[in-house]
């Protein structure tokens, strides 16, 4: 009997995850991709941001695959708060902006702006699970765009 209950709970959890993934697939194209492009463009325009270096790209990509949103968010805050030398000002600029963006995305998620929390009893827990999916998509778009940005910056730096 206990096994039946556990199977049912797992099935329900899987169904919920699939429904979220379908919605996140749509949000990824309609909101997260354009959001990532304008996020970087804004940093370039307003903060003279060049590009995130490759070592940071690899680290951020790897932590974005974590199943716990808190792992990613803590990493971003940690990178933001490190005492970076002036030559690495871009890294601090990037993580400062990313922390703000993720915090706002989390607030929107809790307000159910993305329409993903319907029927959830523990909305805080559900929002954290959804944030794993949303943040992962957003960061993957950011890193792809950052690759193009690095190309534009390279000739400027080598002058």
């Amino acid at each position, binding site marked *: 009997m206990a096994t039946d209950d556990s199977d049912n709970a797992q099935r329900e959890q899987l169904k919920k995850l699939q429904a979220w993934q379908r919605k996140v697939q749509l949000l990824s194209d309609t909101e997260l991709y354009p959001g990532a492009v304008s996020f970087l463009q804004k940093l370039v325009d307003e903060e003279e941001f060049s590009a995130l270096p490759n070592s940071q790209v690899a680290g951020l990509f790897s932590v974005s695959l974590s199943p716990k949103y808190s792992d990613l968010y803590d990493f971003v805050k940690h990178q933001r708060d490190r005492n970076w030398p002036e030559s690495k000002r871009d890294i601090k600029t990037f993580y400062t902006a990313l922390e703000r963006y993720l915090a706002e995305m989390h607030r929107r998620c809790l307000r159910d702006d993305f*329409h993903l929390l319907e029927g959830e009893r523990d909305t805080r827990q559900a929002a954290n699970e959804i944030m794993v999916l949303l943040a992962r998509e957003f960061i993957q778009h950011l890193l792809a765009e950052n*690759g193009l940005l690095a190309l534009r910056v390279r000739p400027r730096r080598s002058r």
Partner: protein
Amino acid sequence: MNQEMKIVREVSVQAEGFYSDAESMGKHAAEALGGKRRAQMTGLENIAEGAFKTSDIFDYIKKQTARFEEWRRGYTEGDQSYGSFGLRLKDYLERNIAGRRDTICGPNILNFSNQTEEGKRERQRIYLLLIRQFIRQMVAQYEFSVKFGFGEGTGDGNRRQR
């Protein structure tokens, strides 16, 4: 005619409309990548065929462009010069193909709202169908150009292999 048939017809009509652009882009790909980088074109085609999101295709093009010098090569066709292959392809898909999606999803043809979730999902699906068509056409021209040479369909397929 049911809705699905209408979609197939409208996508086909648009595909006829962008055929010459796909041909030009296929020649550009052949010039930039040559015959030894065929796997990168089939890789792009596979990504496009299997993608659930258009952003996966754009991210792939961006990553390839950042990673490989070949994807950044320009091309001259007649008196027209083009910059980086990867950026040209990305911009074309994001602007021209998106414009065609808006046309066929608009109120005069398929009438898919971009306000409702269902409408947005249909628009996303149609965008993917259009991109796949374009990439199939482009890759076909690429294969033809690397095999038979560029432009006039004559010449040695290995001529430009790098």
